[in-house]
């Protein structure tokens, strides 16, 4: 069973957590101050840390940050357990390095379940790191169906799983919206890679990546439309193979075309999420895409249809869509335009700004399926 470090300044809460976790079979080490907890963590890194936010002298955010900065504890799963209930607190905790956030309104049973879930992630962690990264491409032949927003949210949801390094490769070189959706500013574009040494190393590639507070690293192909240029098939293939060596997941936001760059990215992907909306032209485009993929020899089992409800009413039924595609739909993303627009405008992905919304929940479910 796991060795768990619990840091909480409240002695009653500390005893209660210790009792619940010990009863579940874990070894519990306690600390009543942030600095004391850090010392214990650095002396003997725990399998997991449960941290309160509101502590005197050093608050829980700072404890999370210092644990992440230390090489020994950089990968330790962190569960923040706090009486602060606001969404802004959850966001700040995740940005400080926590993997999960639980409010003290939760029962001891819920706390234990959350700890077990995080530990289960850790068990699969090293194996996941040892194997090459998995590319997941999001594609639609028809634009305006929400491919980029799904790619952004899926990447962030995957990055929130323990021990997952996630890259988001933005191949929409003509109309990229990924940097805006994450509120990051690209400094370099992939097309400039040709000036770099050959072959491109992971270190040189990381210079071109923008780090988002969620942990996602973004690689963009566009700085301005005037400087927009697609990558060659060879560069795309090489970039993806380098990324697979350094990241567990590479989420690819593809343009609505089947040029050499896009086809290479699709071929290199373990999964292709075919995004469609429940209306006739989108479904027709998806059917044509499936036929084209078949003729191009793309692995049929890699293609996963996902229905994105971008309008409220009047859409085709799931049954109609599935019979047109002749395959099941893996995920249905519910309609939540107000929250999504707010998230896009604020530059904070929905899975971070409104994690309990129906749309964020569906995306998190999709991410956890991919993760497992």
């Amino acid at each position: 069973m796991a060795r768990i470090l619990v840091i909480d300044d409240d002695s009653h809460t500390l005893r209660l957590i210790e009792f619940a976790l010990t009863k579940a079979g874990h070894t519990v080490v306690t600390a009543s101050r942030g600095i004391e907890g850090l010392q214990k963590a650095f002396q003997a890194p725990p399998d997991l840390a449960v941290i309160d936010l509101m502590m005197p002298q050093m608050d829980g955010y700072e404890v999370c940050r210092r644990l992440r900065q230390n090489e020994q504890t950089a990968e330790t799963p962190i569960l923040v357990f706090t009486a602060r209930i606001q969404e802004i607190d959850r966001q700040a905790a995740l940005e400080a390095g926590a993997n999960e956030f639980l409010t003290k309104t939760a029962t001891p049973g819920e706390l234990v379940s959350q700890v077990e879930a995080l530990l289960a992630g850790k068990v699969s962690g090293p194996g996941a790191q040892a194997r090459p990264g998995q590319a997941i491409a999001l594609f639609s032949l028809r634009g305006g169906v929400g491919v980029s927003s799904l790619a952004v949210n899926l990447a962030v949801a995957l990055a929130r799983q323990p021990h997952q390094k996630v890259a988001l490769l933005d191949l929409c070189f003509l109309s990229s919206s990924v940097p805006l959706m994450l509120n990051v500013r690209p400094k370099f574009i992939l097309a400039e890679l040709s000036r770099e040494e050959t072959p491109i190393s992971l270190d040189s590639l990381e210079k071109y990546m923008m780090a988002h507070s969620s942990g996602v690293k973004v690689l963009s192909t566009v700085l301005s439309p005037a400087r927009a240029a697609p990558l060659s098939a060879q560069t795309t293939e090489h970039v993806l193979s380098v990324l697979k060596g350094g990241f567990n997941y590479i989420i690819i936001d593809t343009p609505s075309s089947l040029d050499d760059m896009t086809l290479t990215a699709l071929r290199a992907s373990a999964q292709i999420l075919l995004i469609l909306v429940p209306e006739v032209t989108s479904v027709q485009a998806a059917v044509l895409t499936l036929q084209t993929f078949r003729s191009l020899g793309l692995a049929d089992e890699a293609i996963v249809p996902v229905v994105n409800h971008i309008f409220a009413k009047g859409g085709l039924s799931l049954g109609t869509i599935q019979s047109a595609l002749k395959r099941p739909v893996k995920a249905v993303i519910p309609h939540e335009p107000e929250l999504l627009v707010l998230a896009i405008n604020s530059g904070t992905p929905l899975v971070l700004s409104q994690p309990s919304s129906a749309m964020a929940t569906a995306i998190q479910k999709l991410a956890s399926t991919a993760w497992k």
Partner: protein
Amino acid sequence: MDIYGRGFIVADFFTHTYRISARTDTRKRSLADHLNDRLTSYLELYETFVSRLHKPSEIIASYNLASLRKDGITFVILAAEKETSERHAYGYFSKQLYDVFLTVPSFEIRGKLQVTGKLDLHVLLVKGTENFISLSNPVASPCLFPNITFTGGTVLVNKSRIELFCISEAS
């Protein structure tokens, strides 16, 4: 919220410039009763964590003991849904739910108000003896930072701080 049955309530207290997360001992009463108690003008706070409104997750100060003027509180957000005064728990009149939008200094607050009997805004806001009114399912946003929202089970709003009070039948 009664933390593991110890009579303490943890809440977010808001003035028009600060967020104060703290616990207070309500001595087994509700916080609404405690706030509406006219015999005391201060609230004793324990384990107090202060944040500025423009960065409400950043803790700038923490103290084990603090005192907060009740009339300086703009509103209080609690996790629990049932935090109303005990006096509202019983009654022979029918209860009606209303959607409320109100403004207080620096904030706009939306929530649901339960009214027993006929709605009379004058009684509710002026003649009533309680200093704080309770709304359920609240969403409070600083008007200068509308992307930040504070939610909870209940909000207790200081009536003397209310500037605009809008009400309609619950949708």
